[in-house]
């Protein structure tokens, strides 16, 4: 009690972590529930010929990518896991005591994920035109 009276009041500014933590949480859900199925279908079942999937023929796949819900699916599958990974790596580097300048770390990890998001959006835009 004495210490809290004799010391000047500490300031506790609000953290902006909730933004990246929300993306991290959403990405975690995608990685856990959506991505394994997507990887299984597009990475193994279709290319190895385990099953015939007409949806993965070129014309139907292109149509899927051009539809708004297909674009949304691709965006969700790429961007949210990217932010999940960026957040993990950013804090993982801290936990491993590999800490560079904070602005550099933010740029590399969250900037990288943002760059990937822009690239995905750009590519989806190209597919539609």
């Amino acid at each position, binding site marked *: 009690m004495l210490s809290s009276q004799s010391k000047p009041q500490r300031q506790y500014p*609000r953290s902006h972590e909730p933004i990246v933590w929300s993306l991290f949480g959403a990405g975690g859900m995608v990685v856990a529930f959506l991505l394994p199925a997507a990887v299984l279908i597009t990475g193994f079942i279709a290319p190895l010929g385990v099953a015939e999937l007409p949806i993965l023929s070129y014309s139907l796949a292109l149509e899927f990518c051009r539809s708004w819900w297909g674009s949304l699916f691709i965006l969700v599958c790429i961007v949210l896991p990217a932010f999940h990974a960026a957040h993990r790596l950013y804090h993982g580097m801290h936990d491993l*005591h590999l800490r560079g300048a904070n602005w550099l770390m933010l740029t590399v990890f969250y900037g990288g994920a943002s760059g990937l998001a822009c690239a995905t959006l750009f590519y989806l835009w190209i597919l539609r035109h």
Partner: protein
Amino acid sequence: MNIAAPSADIMKVTVQRYRPEQDNEPWLQHYQVPFSADTSVLEALQHIKDHLDPSLSFRWSCRMAICGSCGFMINGVPKLGCKAFLRDYSELHIAALDNFPIERDLISDISGFVENLETIKPYIIRDDPQELDTSQPINQAFIQTPAELSLYQQFSQCINCGLCYAACPQFGRNPDFLGPAALALASRYNRDSRDQGQEQRALFLNAEEGVWSCTFVGYCSEVCPKQVDPAAAINQGKAASTTDYMLNLLSLSKSGEKE
């Protein structure tokens, strides 16, 4: 009656010593301590102090995991001395709790932790302070149902032993982090149906030094001798802080931006 014969087992016990008036840094001293199946680490230290070396200093009181005084690093793991037994080890290495300054031998200076506890206002707050005015006769009861009690009871079991602070790598790197026990206690009062202090505590919880320094390592919950699970409290606090952040963006929240 079946009385076990006194055991002749002897264990090598290495103890970290630090006497600030003579030593520049901590050093290790070795003792040979007799033990039986029910000898606790605290009893081993008491044996050393009583029979081998009266100069050894350590903190203890209740001997039954209630007071939280005898936290040590036991073979590198934060544990209560009274709750760890020699029978589970082949050799013992006892040191003061990690992440705190050492006052003397095995005594850690936990004043930083106590300050963090004070910061989060660990008491019932009412909008109308007159309701808690102890100089007035009590004229009302704050009734609570068993269901309301169960919402916070787990987080009220903390004995302030500091083991979670010794376990927390984030507190080790940034002593400004309020830390597991303080944040679990904040959660305990925020969950209490009689409390109205959520807005005041949000100010600390929403900060980097609050819930956001935690990276969910989870070691705090693993070493907790009372199963408080501070890691769960903090990560549920992150969800609450995120909701508050979004509401604040929409100017619907009253908390966190004051002062």
